[in-house]
């Protein structure tokens, strides 16, 4: 039992890296996803096709490959671009590339969620807004967005948890620098030292479970706030669909 608590303490710095990767990519991914979703719903065929293609490509290919692809692409520009500019230490750092790829990935998944929600926004409300003479930005701000985010929030919560799970493969694709190790690398290195698969991997799993529950809790609070005007707020389903 003592060993177990030591192990939990040993993993504490590691989980910060997973949290960092998720936290750094969520805001930007969110914003990018809104634009992609609007792009996919756009009446301009070029914008619509491009957004559609982007979303399909990044949802249809493994994140693992996306990591390798972006990282090797960044590497190939190293001598020509990053080195002369003196920023290669930054651009090639896993703490930069990791969130970058996660943003590209989660933006596609989130955009699909937002696109679905966008199509589910009640037509009548939009028509009413138009009848009031609202301009498009006004319509979006006053009518479309509040509806969209409420419809999308439960699915978006799932996506955030999934993104957090996806941070487990960051360091399998990118180089580990010094002591910057996430949960999986820590578990793997400890395993290679004493071959106790059950202890190390279950502690890592516990951390993933714990953070996922915290995310569900926090996002549930936000959902309650979003739904505060409703007579009885429909609770965020606690057993969510983990599929995406």
């Amino acid at each position: 039992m003592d060993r177990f608590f030591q192990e939990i303490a040993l993993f504490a710095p590691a989980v910060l890296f997973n949290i960092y990767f998720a936290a750094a990519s969520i805001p930007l991914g969110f914003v990018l996803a809104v634009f992609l979703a609007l792009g996919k719903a756009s009446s301009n065929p070029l914008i619509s096709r491009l957004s559609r293609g982007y979303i399909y490509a990044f949802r249809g290919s493994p994140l693992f490959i996306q990591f390798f692809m972006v990282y090797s692409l960044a590497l190939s520009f190293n001598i020509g671009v990053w080195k002369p500019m003196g920023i290669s230490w930054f651009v090639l750092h896993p703490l930069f590339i990791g969130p970058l790829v996660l943003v590209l990935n989660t933006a596609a998944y989130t955009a699909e969620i937002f696109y679905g929600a966008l199509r589910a926004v009640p037509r009548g409300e939009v028509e009413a807004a138009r009848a009031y003479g609202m301009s498009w930005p006004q319509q979006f701000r006053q009518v479309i967005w509040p509806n969209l985010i409420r419809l999308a929030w439960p699915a978006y919560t799932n996506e955030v948890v999934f993104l957090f799970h996806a941070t487990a493969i960051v360091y399998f694709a990118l180089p580990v620098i010094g002591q910057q190790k996430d949960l999986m690398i820590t578990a793997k290195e400890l395993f290679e030292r004493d071959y106790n698969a059950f202890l190390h991997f279950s502690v890592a799993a516990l951390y993933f479970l714990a953070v996922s529950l915290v995310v569900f809790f926090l996002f549930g609070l936000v959902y309650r706030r979003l739904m505060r005007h409703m007579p009885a707020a429909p609770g965020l389903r606690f057993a969510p669909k983990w599929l995406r």
Partner: protein
Amino acid sequence: MSEDLTFWLSYITNGKHLTWYASFQFTVFAAVFGGTLAVVFGLLGATLKNSRFLPLRLVGTVYSSIVRGVPDVLFFLFFPLAFEQGVEWIIASQVCTPDMLAAQSAAWPPCKEANWFLGTPEYLILASVSLGLVYGAFATNVIHGALRSVPKGQLEAARAYGMSASQLLWRVHIRQMWVYALPGLSNVWMLIIKATSLLSLLQIADIVLWADRLGAPNFLPAVGLVHEDWRWRYYLVLFVFYILVTLISEKVFEAIMRRAGRGILSEGHH
């Protein structure tokens, strides 16, 4: 122009590239075998979840929620390692003598004689079972939901015909379940396809590992630098390959769903 063409033709058909093309079989095998196992484990898990016996129901629920609650990579790595250790532990308890145990300096296995060497085929099978276990948990949920979507009237009618419980399950319930399970199972299949890119983590020389090797800067003493770092090109090929596989799978599943849904009224079919 034609010289260029012959160069490229010979470049993409050289020995290393042929090995790369051959390594696609690992990915295909893992996807097909892993997918089959996922359906099997899904059926098993859903049966457990539907069981009238509480402990069994608990096993089914715990399996599907725990495995889905942790990242797939974690379980994907854990299962083969733990299985290998388990087997070695059993061998050790049979084979090892006190002398052998004393002679062993490494942490594992208990004695050298108990070491179980795993080659690519063994790891491939373990990886597929691992994929099956992980995505079987997802399939459990899908199938569990689908079993509940079968109209009650159908089951009552079967019972009224005097079918026994197992006849009802196999002849009516599971047969009608597929239509409702297919959309979810198609999602699980897409996840499995994407997870096959992780095979290289289990020391299988799969398409990802070969793309890395082929793309690395290539220098031959006889010709000089053949090419610089081309890894991104190879990864781009894999990127496109996976998108195409997803696209084709989607079309195939659409066709299957259309066929399976014949004669059944639902929102999906107009």
